């Protein structure tokens, strides 16, 4: 049997924290009993929702931890790169030795390429730094190696990329440069911490392909940290599912995804909109990952578990090996009392959504025709503008961000707008809300023209269209109580006071599934999903006819996403509100949308019924977009 490159055994880690009166120091468990191994040429995925300790695990392997972190037990055994060399325990070597390991044996790429590159150094210099440190290369050798590396990561013009500063590169190119830096030390292990989360779908596919190719060439072990089940399914060999600082299930990807034993893995899979039948409610996982320091004593998943038994909250579940594995690599483990329990069936009864009370009507509530939006070139000083006016030089027109977009939306209908970032999706939405001025085109909302030549609408129309924003952490004013947040709209629009008295606000909260006590709390007391519920309630407070949802679930975890999508479905069935749903997640599109509109570079390239468009895309761009989406196997 080949020895694994990296073996992590019973790694436990805690955070020290002062007690509230500052007199004592507590240690809070952050990682417990993490064990896994990584072989050369293999991809192991660490899967889990945010706050489960995935990134912390990667940082612990590199010993790049915040000062409050303390290792408690465990070993991180790194196999030697020489034949017959000894394995080292990385938790017990000196900091000097560790610095040789970082970058040389194990390299890391991060989620956000924009902040992990040094903005004042050229890409080439940043790579050379690694070459000098770990491979003692300098001068022309190093220059050649830099170009070779940049060519390897698929940058079209390595010469230019080497002399470029990070801001001169696009997001995808930055991530490629980041990978080149990671490869410069010729590492045996690559730790990729959500390497594609910040990127578009098409770029995501390219970067993952690149990592796969490089891995094959160099026989690297890759530890891929992700929350995306589809990425795991398409890219990983084995997967370890993490929950609340523990690995709850691990094994070969096909095994884990198709015959999952742990209820958490199952719930994650069931919550995916890709798996659901449109019109049916998504299986949802109630609650969220408990915050650090309040993890249950016994089974950490027990409070959210649907198949919980009494002893689950009393005794920690065992780490069970499932039968049928021939070799170590194919072993499938689960941390649950009910592993192998035949009585649990995979298909839980799913609730059907309520029949829509408001069927889709024929006459559109929102009609957009030939909408064109152009951003003015960034404002220069007064003198610049003055001199331009005086010299009467014609202003060079910039390319419009939204160029002749037309569509209509019927009551009770959901129209999804998909496309890469920068294609003008969000700009269209903001132009409809008149948050930015459009250059030309007409928008007719509920029979009233709100944008068009010579129209100066009063604010009354604003109650007919509202928006739910992407980031629930930025969309609520941190200094306002929920009561103020919810009543802001009705007050500003001059609605009667009965629209925002205590009773109607409580009713509003009830509709989005929040308790009445929430009214007097501040946003920071809520989780991401709850905040998004508040944001939806705020928009609904003025009972709009059209609700624009700008990627409302992209910042949320899978289980929370299912809750929010179910809520949106329910609200539409109840009130007949029309959704303009901006997203890049095709699973969500398939599940929620009636019609789809594909945008590229400010123009509509294809539009049609969801089912038809997804199964038989006509335009080349739509096909490219669909192909780059990782699908569950």
């Amino acid at each position: 049997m080949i020895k694994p490159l990296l073996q992590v055994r019973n790694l436990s880690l805690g955070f020290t924290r002062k007690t509230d009166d500052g007199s004592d120091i507590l240690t809070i468990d952050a990682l417990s009993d993490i064990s896994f191994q990584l072989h050369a040429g293999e991809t192991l995925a660490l899967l889990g929702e945010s706050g489960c300790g995935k990134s912390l695990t990667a940082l612990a392997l590199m010993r790049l931890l915040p000062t409050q972190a303390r290792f408690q037990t465990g070993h991180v055994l790194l196999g030697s790169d020489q034949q017959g060399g000894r394995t080292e325990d990385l938790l017990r070597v000196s900091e000097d030795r560790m610095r040789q390991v970082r970058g040389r044996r194990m390299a890391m790429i991060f989620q956000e390429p924009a902040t992990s590159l040094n903005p004042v150094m050229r890409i080439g210099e940043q790579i050379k730094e690694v070459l000098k440190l770990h491979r003692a290369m300098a001068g022309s050798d190093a220059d050649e190696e830099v170009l070779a590396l940049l060519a390897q990561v698929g940058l079209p013009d390595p010469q230019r990329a080497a002399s470029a500063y990070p801001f001169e590169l696009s997001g995808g190119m930055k991530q490629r440069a980041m990978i080149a830096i990671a490869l410069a030390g010729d590492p045996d292990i690559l730790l990729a911490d959500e390497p594609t989360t910040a990127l578009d779908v098409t770029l995501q596919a390219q970067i993952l392909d690149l990592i796969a190719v490089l891995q094959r060439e160099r026989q690297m072990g890759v530890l891929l940290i992700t929350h995306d089940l589809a990425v795991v399914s398409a890219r990983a060999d084995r997967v370890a599912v993490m929950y609340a600082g523990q690995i709850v299930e691990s094994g070969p990807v096909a095994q884990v995804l198709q015959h999952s034993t742990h209820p958490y893995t199952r719930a994650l899979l069931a919550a995916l909109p890709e798996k659901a039948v449109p019109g049916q409610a998504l299986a949802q996982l109630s609650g969220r990952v408990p915050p650090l320091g309040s993890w249950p004593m016994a089974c950490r998943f027990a409070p959210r578990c649907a198949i919980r038994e009494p002893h689950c909250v009393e005794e920690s579940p065992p780490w069970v090996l499932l039968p049928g594995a021939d070799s170590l690599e194919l072993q499938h483990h689960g941390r649950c009392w009910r592993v192998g329990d035949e009585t649990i069936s995979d298909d839980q009864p799913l609730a059907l959504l309520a029949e829509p009370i408001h069927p889709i009507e024929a006459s559109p509530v929102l009609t957009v025709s030939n909408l064109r939006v152009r951003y003015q070139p960034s404002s220069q000083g007064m003198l610049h503008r003055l001199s331009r006016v005086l010299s009467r030089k014609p202003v060079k027109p910039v390319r419009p961000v939204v160029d002749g977009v037309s569509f209509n939306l019927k009551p009770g209908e959901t129209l999804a707008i998909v496309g890469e970032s920068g294609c003008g999706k969000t700009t269209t939405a903001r132009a409809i809300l008149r948050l930015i001025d459009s250059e030309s085109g007409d928008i007719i909302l509920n029979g009233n023209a709100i944008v068009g030549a010579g129209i100066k609408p009063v604010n009354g129309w604003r109650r007919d269209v509202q928006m739910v924003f992407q980031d629930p952490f930025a969309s609520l004013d941190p200094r306002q109580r929920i009561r103020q947040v919810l009543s802001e709209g009705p007050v500003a629009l001059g609605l009667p006071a009965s629209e925002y008295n205590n009773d109607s606000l409580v009713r509003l909260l009830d509709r989005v599934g929040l308790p009445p006590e929430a009214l007097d709390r501040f946003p920071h007391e809520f989780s991401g999903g709850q905040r998004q519920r508040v944001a939806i309630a705020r928009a609904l407070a003025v009972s709009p006819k059209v609700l624009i949802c700008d990627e409302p679930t992209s910042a949320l975890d899978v289980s929370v996403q299912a809750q929010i999508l179910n809520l949106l479905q329910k609200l539409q069935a109840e009130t007949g509100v029309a959704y303009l749903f901006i997203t890049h997640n095709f699973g969500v599109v398939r599940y929620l949308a009636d019609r789809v509109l594909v945008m590229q570079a400010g123009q509509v390239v294809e539009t049609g019924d969801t089912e038809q468009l997804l199964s038989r895309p006509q335009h080349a761009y739509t096909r490219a977009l669909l192909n780059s989406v990782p699908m569950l196997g």
Partner: protein
Amino acid sequence: MTISSLLNNLSQSLWVWLVTDVLLWSLFVLLILSVVVILRSPLQRAVWQKVFHQRLAVVSAVLLAVAASFALLDSIHLREPLPRATQDMPVRYSVEVNSVLDLLLVDLRKDHEKTYSAPLAVTLAALEPVTVSLPDGTIEVRREAPRLKVAGAAFPPGPVDETTYWLDVVQRADLGAVGGALFFGVLGFIFMLLRRISSKNEQTNRIAWRWVAYTLASLCVLGGIFIGLSSNFHVFGTDKVGQDVLYQVLKSLRTALVIGLVPTLVTLPLGIALGLSAGYFRGKVDDVIQYVYTTVSAIPGVLLIAAAVLSIQVMIDNHPEWFATAVERGDIRLLALCIILGMTSWTGIARLLRGEALKMREFEYVQAARAFGVSAGQILLRHVLPNVFPIILITLVMEFSSLVLAEAVLSYIGIGVDPTMFSFGLMINNARMELSRDPVVWWSLTAAFLFMVILVLAANLLADAVRDALDPRSEGQS
């Protein structure tokens, strides 16, 4: 002076409310109001709890509070009635305007020496011809340092024996310390009683109260020692005209606080209004405001201040009829100085807030408010202003120390406060000549330096603590 005679005096005197008195007291009322608001809001409360979890912040806050109480006592001015010849004569008031602090420190204020004397000295620091009749009947004129008029009165005339002197010093210091400790004990006892009676403070901040107690205890003991020594000595010596230096530094506290706080009354409205509207409205509004503050900050501040202060001084000199007393005249100059300091220092906060508003107008909650058609003014007031409040607060506290230091510099070059007033800057200015004398007169400068450093350091430390607590990025690090 006993308390009863002080009260009697207060009831019969003519009250004089100087402009800066009113401003300082209204700032104090404003502070009390904001404390009430903070106590009511759980969010704010949590933040300030965090501030006062830091020992240095607590100590600084107590020091500043003590300095502020001196300044506030010094900001109640009155004119004492003159003795009447007959009962039915109308009451006339003295032209001398005194503050309550002056009345409390009457011994320090009234008891002048002839000229310089070192701290705790019993003789002058200057040599004078003294006529001595020798035992053999001849008369000799020697140059020696004569005994002080006020200090050392407890000793018999003639040279003071070293042991007697030190015994006396130690005795008085000890007595004062014990008195201070007793005073603190009584204070603590009353406080405990009050707490026992109300006894609802469940979540009191234990660390904070413990350090408040430590600081107050040391201040009480220190104050006791000062009072004890003052009964026979000048603790910080005397200046050129023989005035007690301790009295001068205590009086300077008010000037420092006025200079540190009143300009913000000008800075804040200008800085907030212009900064926020520049950032929020952008375009032409931004252009105009940016040009204004770039221009203002391009003019050398000292020149502008010198020009303004000198022209106001000319105006004051030309209209002696406007002012009933010299104190009022000095006060108007102080106010003018504050206003002009405010006019030159609003650009920093305006620039800061412009950046914040630029960033914040793109925040999704501001967008959501705009989607409801909320007016720009309402958005600025309800969403932007509350969220930049921490920044404003931090800038204010930082500004305080730089203003106090600016006063010292301005008074040093002669365009600061009126020379009839007391201020750290004036004391330092006087020290220019004193340091070149022989023997060196170091105590005046040292006392001013010591008090100013403590005041500014306390303000800076408090500002640091406030910034740490209000900065969301420091969340979770402790």
